[in-house]
C-alpha cells in the first residue's frame, strides 16, 4: 500500500488536514509545496471535468483540480476559505482545490485503519485509511491516486 501507511509503527507523520465539502481529509504534509489562495483561473475547454483550469504560480503553469469533484462530490463552489494545495508530481505542479484548511497534525502511522467497508461511490480507491484524532475522523487521501488521469485508472 502507500508509503505513509507502510511507515513503521511508532514513526510519526505530519499531515495537513482540510475540508472537502464537509469531510475532514488529510494529505501527507511533506508532499505539499505550499498553500495558496484561489486567484483568477483560466478555464480550459475539453479538459477533464475535475480540472477547474490553469493558474500562474510564479511563472509556472499549475493545473487546478477540484478535489471534491475528483472524490465524487458535487462541483466546488469557491468561497473565501477556498485554498489550493500545490503538489509537485513528476516535474509538474498541480493544485488541489479544497474548501477550507484545517490544521497540521502529527500522527503515528500505526493509528491508521483501512477505510471502512461501507465506503462506496468509487471513493475508496482515493483513501489510504482513516483514523480518529481528538474525536474527529480524518480520512487520509492518496495523492498519487488523485493525480492519476482517468485513462490511467
Amino acid at each position, binding site marked *: 500500500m502507500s508509503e505513509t501507511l507502510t511507515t513503521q509503527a511508532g514513526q510519526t507523520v505530519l499531515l495537513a488536514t482540510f475540508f472537502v465539502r464537509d469531510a475532514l481529509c488529510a494529505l501527507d504534509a511533506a508532499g505539499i509545496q505550499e498553500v495558496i489562495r484561489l486567484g483568477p483561473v483560466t478555464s*480550459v475547454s*475539453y479538459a477533464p471535468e475535475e480540472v477547474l483550469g*490553469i493558474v500562474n504560480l510564479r511563472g*509556472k503553469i499549475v*493545473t487546478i483540480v477540484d478535489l471534491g469533484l475528483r472524490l465524487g462530490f458535487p462541483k466546488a463552489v469557491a468561497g473565501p476559505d477556498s485554498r489550493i494545495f500545490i503538489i509537485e508530481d513528476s516535474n509538474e505542479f498541480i493544485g488541489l482545490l479544497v474548501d477550507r484548511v484545517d490544521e497540521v497534525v502529527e500522527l503515528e502511522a500505526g493509528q491508521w485503519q483501512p477505510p471502512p467497508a461501507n465506503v462506496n461511490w468509487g471513493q475508496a480507491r482515493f483513501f489510504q485509511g482513516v483514523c480518529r484524532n481528538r474525536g474527529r475522523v480524518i480520512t487520509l487521501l492518496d495523492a498519487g491516486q488523485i493525480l492519476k488521469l482517468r485513462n490511467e485508472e
Partner: protein
Amino acid sequence: MSELNLDDELVQDYLAECREHLATIENDLLAIEQGGADIDEQLVNRVFRAAHSIKGGAGFFDLSKIRELAHRTENALDLVRSRQMVPTPEAVSILLLAFDKLRELIGNHRASNAADIGEFVVALTALAAGSLPEHEKSSLSEQVTVQVPEANKGIQVSAFDLSQARKGGKRVYLIEYDLIHDIERRNKTPWEVFKRLIKCGTILETVFDLDSAGTLDDEPSNRLMLEVLYATVLEPDLLEGLVEVPPERMRLIEKDGNIRSLAAPVPVPAAEPPAPAKPQVEATPVTQAKPVIATPALEDAPKTVNAMPVPANEATIRLNVTLLDSLMTLAGELVLSRNQLNESLARQDDRGIRSGAQRVSLVTSELQEVVTQTRMQPVGGLFSKFPRLVRDLARDLGKDAQLKLEGGEVEIDKTILEGLSDPLTHMVRNSVDHGIEPPAERVAAGKPALGTVTLKASHQAGQVVIEISDDGKGLAAEKIAASSVSKGLVTREQVQSMSDREKMALVFLPGVSTAEKVSAVSGRGVGMDVVKTNLDRLGGKIEIDSAPGQGSRFRIKLPLTLAIIPSLLVSDGGQRFAIPQVSVGELIRIPAAQLAQRTDRVGDAQILNVRDRLVPMLYLADALGVPRPDSSLRALNVVLVDTGAFEYGLVVEELHDTVEIVVKPLGRHMKGLHDYAGATILGDGRVAAILDVAGLAARANLTAGTAETASRHAAAETNSSGELHSLLVFHNAPNETCAVPIEQVSRIERVRPAQVQHLGGRRTMQYCGSSLPLVALHDTAAVGELSEEQQWVVIVFERLGRPLGLLAAEPLDMLEAELNIDAVTLRQKGIGGSAVLKDRTILLLDIFELADAARPEGAPSELRNLASAVASGDHALTVLVADDSEFFRGQIQRLVESVGCKVLTAEDGEAAWELLDHHAGEVDLLATDIEMPRLDGLALTQRIRADGRFAGLQVIALSSLAGEEEIARGLAAGVNEYQIKLNKDELTDSIRKAARRKVSDPAYATT
C-alpha cells in the same frame, strides 16, 4: 593518458573540432568526386588538412584507432593531392565510409581504441596501393625508425609517410617539447601548440617520452618530453619562431636518415628543390555565405565549398566573443536601470520610475534578442549532411539526383535545428526515393535524366521557411486517398469532399505510404506522420504543393525560436487566448452591415469571402464549446488562420495586440487536447491558453473539404437558374424565416409589443405623428404568432401612397441571393412561395395580398372599378407576362388578374414571342422580365419593335435590380416603362392607363 592529467575540457575541445571537420569533409569529398581528375587543390588540401588535424589530435590523446584511420585517409588524400590518384566515385565512397567510421569513433571516443577498423584500413591501403607505382607499394607497409637522440627509444613511422612528407620540398624535423616548461609554464595548452603546427605543416607522429618523467625512485626530473615528427616547408630559422622551443631540441632529419641538431648552423641542402609556393597557411574554417551547390561540375564553375559548423554536441555551444561582450554590457545596463528604479521608488519620483521602467523594458528586449542570438545557428550545418545522403541514396536506387542547397546562412534556434534533423532527413530521402523517377522514366517524360532536389531556407515575416522541392513525379493525391481509405483512416465519403491538397496532406496520417513498393528506404508507411509530429513539436507548419509529373514541394514554416514566439492575443467570452503568429494569415473585421455581403451559409457551414476565396468560418466559442458571445448586429473579428492543409476564418470576440509570449507546457490533464499548443503567462500575470488552429479545426470537424464543398455549393447556387434578388429576411415566429423583396420596403422600425395599439379590432401604432395600420402574417396565413420575447420590428411598406406596417421579428438580414422560388409547395394566402437559402426555408411574403386580405376595404375602389371596367365585354385587356421565375410569374399573373385582365404567361422571351406571334392582335400589354434564358427581355422588345404588327404594344420591363444604365438600355431597346418587379401599384397604374387607351381607341392595338 590519465597519468598525464590531460584536461577533459581539452578532449572535448578536440572532439568538437573533429566534428566540425567531419561536417565539412563530406561535402568537400562530394565536390572532389564531381571534379574528377581535374582536382581543385585547395579543396583536397582542406580535406587533407582536416584528416590530418584529426589524426594529430588523436595521436596526442592516445586515441589509437582514430589516429590510425585518420592516418589512412590522409594517405589516400595525399595521393589525390599529388595527382597520383584520381578521385573516382569508388575511391570517394571508400573515403566517405572511412570518415563515417571516424565520426562513429569520435562519437564514442572512450571506446574507440577497442573498435575494429580492419576493413577500412584494408580498403584504404588497397586504394593507396592501387595508385602507387610498383616500387613504392612496399613503402606502405615498411616501417622506419627514427632514433631520438639522448633517449633510448625511437619513433616508428611508415616509410611511405616519410617519403610522402618529403614530397613537395618539405623538410622533416624532430621537435622535442617539454610539456611542463614549454607548454604548461607558458600558459599554453598542448592542443594549441598542435594546432599551430598543423597550420604550417604535417605532424607525422607524436610520442610521449614517459621515461623522461622518471620513476618514483629517481630524482624528480621535472620534465615531461613529447617528441614530434613534423614535416613542413619552413626553413629551420623560421621553424624556431613557430615552435618556440630552444634550438637544441629541434632536429632536422635528412633524407639519408641523418639527424642534425638545429643548434648548429644548418646549410641548406642543395639537393632539395626550392619549396613551391603552395598556400600553406589557411584561415581556420569560417562559415561561408555561399553554400555548396552540387551541380555536375561545369568546367568554369567556381568550386565553392562551405565549411559550416556542425550543430555542436548537446552540452556546449560555441559563442562569438562579441556576443558575450554585448551580453555583459546589457547585464551591466540592467543593473544600472534597476538601481535607478529602486532609487526612484524610494524617492517616489514618478518621472524617475517611468523612465526607469522604460529603460528596463528597453534593456530587457535587447537582452532577449542577444540571448536568442546566442542560440542561433545557421541551418547550413544541418543542410550539409544532405548532399551525401542524396548521393548515396541515388546510387543505391539507380537514380540520377543532385541536391541544391540555398540559404544555408539562415539562422535558427539550436533546439529547433536539432529537432529538424530527422524530419528533414526523412523528407529529403522521400524526395529522392518517391519523387525523383528513374532516369529512363525521366527522359521518357521529357525531363533531364538528372533529377534535382532543392533544399532552401529563407526568412519570411519573422519565421524561417524551409522548402524541400523536387522535380520528380509529384504526389498522387488519389493514390494517397485510396491508400488512406483502404487502411480505414478516412472514409470514402470524407475523401470525396477533399481537395487535392488535403488528400495529399493525408500522407501525414500514420500508416499511409505512397510508395508502390516497399524499399529499404521507404514505403513502409512510417515516417511522414512522425515528420508531422516532430514539426508540430517544434511549432512548425508543413504545407504540400504538388503537380503530377512536375514535382512536389514541401514548405515548413518554423518559428525562429521555440521558447519565445510572437503571438496574436484574442479574447472570447472574457478569456484571452494566444494564436501563434506562424498560423495567422490576416485579420479581417467585417462590419455588421457587410456581414450578409461577405459571408454566406452553406448547410451548417458559414463561409467567408476573402478576395474571391471562400474560406470556412469557425467561431472560437463554438470550437471551444462555450456559448457564443452575443454579437448579432456587431462587427465580426475574423482571424484568418492557416493549418497547413487549408485556411479558415476564426471568429473571435475581440482582437488584441501581437505580443511575444513564453510558451509553457500544459499539465498532464490536458495532454490529450489538441486544441491547445500550451499556455503562457500574460503581462498581468494571468494565464492564457495558446490555441492550436489545426486542432481547433479538427475539433469542429472543419476540413479543407468543408471549404471546398462550401465554395462548390456556393458556385452551384450561383449557377442555378435563379435570378439575383435583394431580400429582406426576418423572422415571424422564432423558427419561421420570412423574406420580402427589399424594393417593397420603405423602412424598418424597432417596436416594443406594448407600442402596438389594438383599436376597433385593428392594430395600429403611432408613427410619424399619425396612425400606422399594422398587419401580421398570422392574420392571413396559417403561421405562428410573434412572441413577446422576440425583438419586434415593423416593416413599413408603401401601399397606394399610404404606409402600411408588417409586424415581424429580429434577427434581420439583408441578402442578395439567386433564388429558385417554389411557388407551389408552401403557397397560401399572403405567402407567395418559398425558397431554400443556406439550408433554411424562407417564406416569401406577398405583402399586398396580405394587406388586402387583412383589410379588404383597403383595396382601392378605383382598382375595383377598373377591374369591372376591363372585365366587361370585349374591352378586356390581355396582358402577356414573361418571366422565367415561376414565383414571380405567378405573382404578376395574380396581380394582373386581380384587376380583371386576361393573362397569358411565358417562361422566357422565346415562348413570349411565339405567343405574341400566335395572338398577334390580342395582346395589349407585355410585362416582361429582363433576365431570361433563350431570349431575354430586351432582345424580345427589340424583336417586337422591329415588327410592325406590334407598334401599339405597351412593353413594361420588370426587374428586381434597376440601375440607370439598365433603364437607359431598356428604353433604347423600345421599352415603354421600366418597373421594379412586384411593385403592384406601379403595374396596376400602367394597366389602368393601357385600359383607358383601349377604351378610348379600341382599334389601337390592332393597327
